[in-house]
């Protein structure tokens, strides 16, 4: 990476976001945003998972330790989970994860959990815009520059 790029200003900083989207709702929502040609920032790298409840906190921690600036987890709306209660469990995991983020000294705003249904292409695009801007304000993940982990 060039020195020039490293010293970019905060406003030009392009956050890297890892997005875990559930197969049944959020991934389909993102797909709809695409097929509907709704524009949204390209900062998110999407990984399709079967359920938001299958996202072990370890995946999120690994993304952050490897230098991702933010992690997004998308699931079905409460009550709509394809597996009945995966998203409720994802929510509990997120509460537990906040605790570990605190130990690491990371802002809990770097990890987002949102409910996006298959029909909410617009909401997916809006959420991505909102999250990208929010992470841009927070600045780069301080862990990214640590090589001693």
């Amino acid at each position, binding site marked *: *990476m060039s020195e020039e790029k490293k010293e970019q200003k905060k406003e030009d900083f392009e956050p890297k976001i890892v997005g875990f989207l559930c197969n049944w709702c959020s991934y389909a929502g993102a797909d709809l945003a695409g097929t509907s040609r709704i524009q949204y920032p390209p900062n998110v790298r999407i990984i399709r998972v079967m359920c938001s409840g299958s996202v072990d*906190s*370890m995946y999120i*921690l*690994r993304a952050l*330790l*490897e*230098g991702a600036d933010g992690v997004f987890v998308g699931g079905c709306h*409460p*009550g709509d989970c394809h597996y009945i*209660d995966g998203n*409720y*469990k994802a*929510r*509990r*995991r*997120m*509460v*537990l*994860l*906040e*605790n*570990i983020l*605190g*130990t*690491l*000294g*990371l802002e809990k705003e770097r990890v987002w*959990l*949102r*409910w996006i249904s298959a029909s909410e292409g617009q909401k997916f695009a809006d959420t991505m815009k909102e999250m990208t801007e929010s992470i841009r304000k927070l600045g780069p993940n*301080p*862990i*990214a*520059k*640590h*090589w*001693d*982990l």
Partner: protein
Amino acid sequence: MTNKTIKVKDNDIAGSVNDFLKHLLSSGKVQALLVPQNMPSKKVVFPVFISDPKKLHADVLAPILPASMASLISKMTKVQSPSKPIGVVMRSCQIRALIELVKLNQARLDNIIIIGVDCPGTFPINTYTSFPEKKTPTHFLVEAFVKKSDEAEKYLRTACRICKDPIPTNADIILGFYGSDIEKEILVEAFTEAGKNLLKDIALEDEKEGKGREKAVKDIREEKNKKRADFLKEKEGMKGIEKIAEFFENCVNCHNCRHACPICYCKECLFDSSVFDAEAYKFLRKAEIKGLFKMPNDALLFQLGRMNHMILSCVECGLCEQACPNNILLMDVFIPAAENAQKKFDYHPGKDKNDKIPMIVYREDEFLEVGEK
């Protein structure tokens, strides 16, 4: 109810407890016992599984916890419960761990009779085996206990020094040292039907004064709670990537802490798998992005991942810290994290075997601030 007592003969506490335990074995009330016993060298005490009363030389007060008793019980009950009663002599932290393993479907309590012992604390294995004082560790501890002095305090493991609760809960019977003159008598109290049955037909004396125990238990709990609160306050600043990176700097990724932990039970741990092996170009790419990175490169992820997986059930036994070959003071980070996490879910590991592990249950109307804003 009046408590019973075991009379201590000739100041021989261990011997008097052994007479009681031998009686349990020879009367057939328990088929076997899992109990800490002196090794032939007399240098160290390990748990033994014993059925022959003649060979019993237990030392239930020896201040050492070489292995998790809860994990040992998990080993022998996970597949099938014993058909006859087995007595297990355990300290409070290990009973808490056993209750957690039962919730995690890793142990069964049928025909397991828990004989809890009041715990005045334990020393690290190395301190125990090369004890600097003239007396044996057990004598030293008992003397300090009788004198109510804190001279044993400096040898205690951190986890013991700030123990959550040294008095066993969920035991069938308790052998009580707090609140009795242990050079003369040891309290025996039964809490369950199985426990009462155990004490039936055994010639034990009634306790003379009933109140001493209650107050002593309250006092020691208060004292330990205060020490724990002070510790939490002292370690409040142990967070932030700079401090955490330095804290785990010496971690060699040996996973001893995981092996020692009674809660870490996964047959196949993610960190033993080949998930973190990758093609050389991926390592190269990461080096090019960062300039350099430390190897082995997943030590911190291991620590945080383990923390995330077991922290709600953490019973604060401190065996992870004892197992660390590089003396990383794991309690400094794990106890504050456990305290926060358990508070958030109002969960008390080891309190009640009917409680559900927070990660497998939910309510629709909780934590609404997480997720949708």
